[in-house]
C-alpha cells in the first residue's frame, strides 16, 4: 500500500520504573480500517492505548497521524489530534444528561459564560440520529443501558470529528443483538474513513468485524495478520506463545441430588424456577443479559432474598437469608464483577482467601495465622495461583489469578456447591483454559457447579446439562447430547423480539 496510513505507531517503547511495558511496537492502521488489537492481559495493549490517548508518554518512538508525527502529551492534546477513546469502563457522569456528557469538558457556551444547553442537545441529537435515534439527548445518561451508553460515547467521537477511534473491550457486557447493533455502528465509522482500533478478548468478534489484527505478547508485536488468511487457532497460539490443547468435555455427574430448587422467585427478576443439581455435575445456565441468570445465582448465594420457593440441600430444606446462611450450607458465589463483588483490593491474597473461613481459623477468637497461611498456601497450589506470594495485595495479581483466589476462598471454606457468574470475564485466553480445567476437576472431586455464561462456546465446553433462561424463568433444559449453539439460542430469544427484529430492524436497548 502506497497510501499513507491514518495511524502509525513507530518503534514505541514504554519503560516504567520496574518494568518495560512496551518495546519497539510498530504497526499501522489505514483510514477506514477496523484493526483488531489482541493479546493477553499484560501484553501491553492498554499501555499502547494510553499512549494513543495521551495518558502516558512513550519512552521512545512516535505516533504518526496521516503521516505526520504528533505529540500527545495529555488527553486534551490527543483529542485535538482527532483521537477518541472509548473505554471499557465508560467514563461518564450518570446524573448528567446525555448531551451534557457528550460535551463534558468543553461545553458549548453563549458568550463564554452560560452553557448553551439547547444547542448542545440539538447537536447531540444530530450525532445520535445516525446511530440510535431512540436516545433522548436531554435524558439522564444513567437511565440508559450499557450498550446505549457506548453509542453515546461513539456519538461523542463523531462530534469531535475523530479520525481515530480506539475501543477497549467495548462489548464485554453487551447482548448478542446489542453487539450486532454496535458492529453496524463501527462499520459505519469505518465507511466514513475513521481508523478504528478494536481491543477485545473475544476472538469471534474480532474475526467478525475486523479486517486486520495486530497480536501483542509481553510488550512486543508478535505480528500483524490479515484475518481472512489465518485461523482463530493460529491467532490464539500467537497470543499465548504456545498451542492450547483442545480439550474434550468429560462428565462426572452422579445420580445423587445435591441441590433441589422448587418454585424459586424473587420480587422482580426471577419467576418460578425449579431444577435439581447433582453431585459432580456442571450445570450451565444460558440466556440473554437480563433474563434473570445473575439474579437467580444471587438468590442461591443468599445475597438477595427470595420471595417464594424452597431450596433443599441433600434433601434438607435450608433458609437463605444472607450469604452467611448460604456459606454455612456449603454454597459459594464467584461473582461476575470481581473488582466490585469479589476481591478486597488492598488486602493480601491470603487474607482474601481466608475471608470466608474466619470462624474456623480463629477457633478461640484469635486468628491462628500460621494455620491461615498454611490453608492459603494449600489452596493457592490447588488452584495453581501464581506468583506464589501469600502477602502480596490481591490487586497486584492478574484477573485470572484473582478469580482463582476467589475459587480458593470457597475451597478453603469447605464449599460444596460453587456458583460461577461469567467465570472467565476479563480473563486471558491462557488463564481461561486453566479455569475450565479447574471447574472440571472440582466436579470430578464431587463438587456441584453452576456456570452462568453469555459465551455459548463456554457453556457448551463445560456443561453436563444446560438450563436456558428467558424472562426470569427456565425456558428449557437441554441435555449434553442435544447441546449446540442453535438449540440454546432458539430458547433464549423471546419470540416477540425475533419477529420485531425482522420487522423493524434492531432497536438497541429495547
Amino acid at each position, binding site marked *: 500500500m502506497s497510501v499513507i496510513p491514518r495511524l502509525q505507531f513507530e518503534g514505541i517503547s514504554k519503560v516504567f520504573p520496574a518494568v518495560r511495558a512496551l518495546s519497539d511496537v510498530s504497526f499501522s492502521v489505514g483510514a477506514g480500517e477496523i484493526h483488531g488489537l489482541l493479546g493477553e492481559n499484560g501484553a501491553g495493549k492498554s499501555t499502547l492505548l494510553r499512549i494513543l490517548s495521551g495518558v502516558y508518554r512513550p519512552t521512545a518512538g512516535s505516533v504518526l497521524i496521516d503521516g505526520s508525527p504528533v505529540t500527545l502529551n495529555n488527553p486534551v492534546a490527543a483529542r485535538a489530534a482527532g483521537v477518541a477513546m472509548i473505554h471499557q469502563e465508560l467514563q461518564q457522569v450518570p446524573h448528567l444528561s446525555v448531551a451534557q456528557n457528550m460535551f463534558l469538558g468543553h461545553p458549548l457556551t453563549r458568550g463564554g459564560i452560560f452553557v448553551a444547553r439547547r444547542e448542545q442537545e440539538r447537536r447531540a441529537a444530530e450525532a445520535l440520529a445516525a446511530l440510535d435515534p431512540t436516545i433522548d439527548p436531554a435524558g439522564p445518561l444513567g437511565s440508559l443501558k450499557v450498550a446505549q451508553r457506548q453509542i453515546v460515547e461513539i456519538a461523542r467521537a463523531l462530534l469531535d470529528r475523530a479520525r481515530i477511534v480506539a475501543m477497549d473491550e467495548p462489548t464485554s457486557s453487551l447482548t448478542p443483538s446489542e453487539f450486532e447493533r454496535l458492529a453496524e455502528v463501527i462499520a459505519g465509522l469505518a465507511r466514513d474513513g475513521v481508523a478504528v482500533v478494536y481491543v477485545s478478548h473475544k476472538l469471534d468478534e474480532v474475526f467478525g468485524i475486523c479486517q486486520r489484527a495486530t497480536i501483542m505478547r509481553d510488550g512486543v508485536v508478535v505480528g500483524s495478520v490479515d484475518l481472512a488468511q489465518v485461523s482463530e487457532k493460529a491467532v490464539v497460539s500467537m497470543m499465548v506463545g504456545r498451542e492450547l490443547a483442545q480439550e474434550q468435555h468429560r462428565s462426572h455427574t452422579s445420580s445423587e441430588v445435591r441441590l433441589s430448587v422448587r418454585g424459586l422467585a424473587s420480587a422482580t427478576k426471577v419467576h418460578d424456577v425449579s431444577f435439581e443439581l447433582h453431585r459432580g455435575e456442571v450445570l450451565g445456565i444460558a440466556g440473554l443479559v437480563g433474563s434473570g441468570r445473575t439474579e437467580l445465582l444471587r438468590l442461591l448465594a443468599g*445475597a438477595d432474598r427470595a420471595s417464594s420457593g424452597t431450596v433443599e440441600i441433600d434433601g434438607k430444606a435450608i433458609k437463605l437469608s444472607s*450469604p452467611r446462611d*448460604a456459606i454455612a450450607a456449603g454454597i459459594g458465589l464467584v461473582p461476575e464483577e470481581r473488582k*466490585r*463483588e469479589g476481591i478486597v483490593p488492598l*488486602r*493480601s491474597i491470603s487474607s482474601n482467601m481466608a475471608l470466608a473461613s474466619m470462624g474456623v481459623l480463629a477457633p478461640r477468637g484469635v486468628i491462628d495465622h500460621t494455620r491461615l497461611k498454611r490453608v492459603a498456601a494449600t489452596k493457592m497450589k490447588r488452584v495453581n495461583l501464581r506468583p*506464589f*506470594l501469600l502477602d*502480596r495485595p490481591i490487586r497486584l495479581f492478574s484477573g485470572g489469578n484473582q478469580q482463582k483466589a476467589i475459587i480458593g476462598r470457597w475451597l478453603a471454606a469447605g464449599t460444596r456447591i460453587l456458583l460461577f457468574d461469567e467465570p472467565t470475564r476479563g480473563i486471558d485466553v491462557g488463564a481461561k483454559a486453566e479455569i475450565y480445567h479447574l471447574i472440571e476437576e472440582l466436579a470430578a472431586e464431587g463438587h456441584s457447579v453452576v456456570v452462568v455464561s453469555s459465551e455459548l462456546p463456554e457453556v457448551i465446553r463445560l456443561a453436563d446439562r444446560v438450563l436456558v433462561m428467558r424472562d426470569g424463568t427456565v425456558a428449557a433444559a437441554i441435555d449434553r447430547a442435544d447441546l449446540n449453539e442453535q438449540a440454546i439460542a432458539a430458547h433464549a430469544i423471546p419470540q416477540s423480539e425475533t419477529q420485531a427484529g425482522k420487522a423493524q430492524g434492531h432497536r438497541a436497548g429495547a
Partner: protein
Amino acid sequence: MTDITEHTAARPRAEFLHRFSVRDAGTLIGLVVILAVFGALVPGFFAERNLINILQQSSINACLALGMTLVIISGGIDLSVGPTAALSAVISASMLVAGVPFPLAIAAGFAIGLVCGLLNGVLVAYVGLQPFIVTLGTLSTYRALALIYTGGNPVLGLPAGFRAIFNGSLFGLPLAVIIVAVVALIAWILLKKTPFGEYLLAVGGNEEAAYIAGVPITRTKIAAYMISGLLAALAAQILIGRLGAAEPILGNLWELDAIAAAAIGGASLMGGKGSVVGTILGAVILGTMRNGLTLMNVQSFYQLLATGLIILAAMLIDRVTRGRG
C-alpha cells in the same frame, strides 16, 4: 517439598514487613524529626518530665483516635466523639457527686458511651444512612443532651478518691498513659489478630465483596462505632479525673484532632486502611507540636497553623511516596 514451601514462604514475609510497616516507619521518622527540631530549639525539651508530659497530653486524643481509626477503617467516620464524651462525663460526674460508688458511676459513663456508639452504628449500618451525616446529627444531639441535663452548668466537686484513680502513676508513668497504652495494645490485637479486624478491613476495603464472602457487615460496623463511643467515654473519665469537674461543653472539636491523628498515622478516609501504631504516633506528633510550641511561647494562632500544616504535609508525603493511583 517442605523445603520449597519454607523457602518461598520466607521471602514474601520479608516483603510483607518491608511493604506494610513502611507507612508506620514514615510516621515514626516524622515524629523523630519533630522531636529533634524541638530538642534543638527548646532547652530542657528532652527532660524526662517534659517527655512524660507530652505523653500525658497526648493520651486523651490517642484514646479517641484509636476508636476513630477503627471506624475510619470500616469506611465510616465518627464526628460525635466529643459530645459523647461530654454526655458520659456529666452523667458519671453527677452520680459521683450524689455519692454513687465509683465503679458504678464509671460503668454508667461507659454504658453511655456504648449506647451513643450503638445509636450511631445502627443508623449507619442497619438503617443505611451516611456516617458523616449521622454523626453530624448525633454530634448536636448528644451535646444538647449534655447541656440540657446539666442546665449548661459544670458539675463540680468530684470526690478526691475518684480523682486519685486517674491521676495516679505506675512505674513513673501517669496512669492515664498506661491505660491508653493498654487500650492501644488491645486495639492492635483486635485489628491484627482477630476475625473482627479482618472483617473491618474487608468491609471498609470492599463492602460488596465482604458481603458475598459472608462477612457480618452490620455487626462489624456497629461494633466499630460502639468501640469509638466506649473510648470517648474512657477519655471523658480520664479528663474529669484530672480536672475534678465535668463541663457539658467538654470535648469540643475533639473529633478533629482524633481524625487528624488517624490520618497522619495512615488511615484512609476511603476505608479499608489504617494502623494502630500509626495512629498512636500521629497522636504523639500532634501532642509534641503543641507542647513544643507552647514551650517556645508561640501564640496559639500559630500553633493551630502548625497543626494544620503538619496534617497537610503528612498527606502530601503519603501521596508522593505512593505515586499516582
